[in-house]
């Protein structure tokens, strides 16, 4: 039993010796004066990947990453926690790997960005000066768009669970506490929102749980959109074949108001009473993007130069992931935020060194969705930079969705999760 421990220690010892040698061998790139200070706001798919790749590609660059949470909790795979098929600990990864790579990881709340003075201010008074800043705050919610949702009491009752963590666990508890014969309503906002297929995967996971444990119950999917936003045919098939009689889907069912006292969701022409109401509110770029003056698209999103991910509103600030005004057919996904981060990391290193940036970047996306405990469907796309339009465009004929749900893709989905978590958080 201790064989692993011993051999691992030996490996680590050997690794340390090798590191010493390789550091000496790379003295020209890894030592000497820092090429610059980069602060990364947000330690999710975008921010953590940026921090890691800045270290991998930047040589001697100072990287400080700030997140309010002590650990990363993954939204992808977290719908399985709602189904009871995963624990929240299985979608949680620490920042130790980044620390071991030399990233300064700070747990704290960013309260302001002084764009003129090039400093980030934290709630505890700390000031972090930067040469270039990465802002990857994800989304925040437009609770004001739904009447009755502005109060803390309403938000505690109508959970979004659209940021993985305590809300995921709390919604799972609401599901397990519900009586057999109860109704779970899931409200989906109008696109664009974080993770286009996510709400439909969630509906499948909740339905799978109810089918197995509370078969007299129902899931009511209240979609603010005119039709299923992503993987439409595949989700329609899952709803019809697997969850007939348990899951009811309604298009054009935008949530207008919630009544916390009575547990009622009010649509335009109808009131829906349910035991559990999961409200995924409309979204915009995270609060810090707004207070820093980065939001310049539709009063919701951040415009970026796709060659560098630099904000079109404020120079020197690179914005990643869900907060950006998405290019055509580009989803707001963790995978895409990771890809944005690599474009930004490469460009930031170039800019700090006074080099030209990559003129032909490519990003791609893969989103896997569980339709049952083990079977999965995907959507994939590849986006090439178009110099004329200064925009990422999908390649005609590329990308697409699964032919059918399968267990092979179920294994690939879990493999994807392990690999992307490693690609953003493990020591390289």
């Amino acid at each position, binding site marked *: 039993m201790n064989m692993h421990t011993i051999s691992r220690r030996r490996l680590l010892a050997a690794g340390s010796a090798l590191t010493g040698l390789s550091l000496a061998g790379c003295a020209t790139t890894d030592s000497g004066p820092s090429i610059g200070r980069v602060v990364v706001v947000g330690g999710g798919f975008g921010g953590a990947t940026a921090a890691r790749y800045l270290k991998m590609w930047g040589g001697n660059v100072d990287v400080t990453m700030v997140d309010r949470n002590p650990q990363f909790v993954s939204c992808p795979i977290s719908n399985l926690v709602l189904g009871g098929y995963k624990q929240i600990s299985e979608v949680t990864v620490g920042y130790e790997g980044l620390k071991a790579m030399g990233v300064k990881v700070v747990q704290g709340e960013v309260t302001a960005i002084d764009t003129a003075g090039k400093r980030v201010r934290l709630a505890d008074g700390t000031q972090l000066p930067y040469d270039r800043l990465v802002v990857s705050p994800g989304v925040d919610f437009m609770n004001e768009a739904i009447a009755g949702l502005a109060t803390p009491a309403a938000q505690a009752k109508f959970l979004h669970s659209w940021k993985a963590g305590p809300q995921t666990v709390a919604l799972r508890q609401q599901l397990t506490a519900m009586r057999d014969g109860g109704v779970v309503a899931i409200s989906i906002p109008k696109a664009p929102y974080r993770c286009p297929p996510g709400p439909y995967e969630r509906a499948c996971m909740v339905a799978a749980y109810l089918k197995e444990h509370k078969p007299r119950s129902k899931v009511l999917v209240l979609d603010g959109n005119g039709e299923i936003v992503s993987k439409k045919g595949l989700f329609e098939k899952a709803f019809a074949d697997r969850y007939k009689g348990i899951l009811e889907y309604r298009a054009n069912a935008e949530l207008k108001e919630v009544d916390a006292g009575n547990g009622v969701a009010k649509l335009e022409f109808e009131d829906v009473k349910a035991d559990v109401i999961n409200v995924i509110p409309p979204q915009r770029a995270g609060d810090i993007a707004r207070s820093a003056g980065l939001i310049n698209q539709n009063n919701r999103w951040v415009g970026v130069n796709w060659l560098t991910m630099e904000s079109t509103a404020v120079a020197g600030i690179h914005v990643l992931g869900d907060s950006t005004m998405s290019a055509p057919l580009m989803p707001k996904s963790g995978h895409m935020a990771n890809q944005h981060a690599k474009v930004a990391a490469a460009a930031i290193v170039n800019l700090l060194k006074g080099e030209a940036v990559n003129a032909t970047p490519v990003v*791609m996306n893969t989103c896997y969705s569980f339709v049952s405990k083990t079977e999965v469907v995907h959507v994939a796309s590849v986006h*090439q930079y178009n110099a004329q339009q200064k925009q990422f465009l999908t390649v005609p004929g590329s990308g697409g969705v699964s032919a059918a749900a*399968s267990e092979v893709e179920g294994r690939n989905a879990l493999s994807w999760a392990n*690999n992307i978590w490693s690609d953003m958080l493990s020591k390289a």
Partner: protein
Amino acid sequence: MPLSRFVAVATLALVSPWAAAQATDVNLARNLAATCANCHGTNGNVQGKDVKGLAGVPAANIIALMSAYKAGSIPNTTIMHQIAKGYTDDQIKLIAAYFAAQKPASR
């Protein structure tokens, strides 16, 4: 079509004007290969056994496989035929060379 034909076509792509124009960016291959890492691991060192690792795989093998995916000649594939079509032959050549030069992590 036989795989050798794909390899020949991809090899021709090496000397295309596009590749010559891009040769000035020393990081282009690295940047392109990084788009594969989400599924195939950082620098092609994959975690787990469900997906192929690419570190140290000969470039010709990667080019042949990607060409076959592009051509739709690999049966029972789930996703790679869709992704392969998004990359140019020149990009695939650069990606393949990058992964071929990576050292597989000992595990």
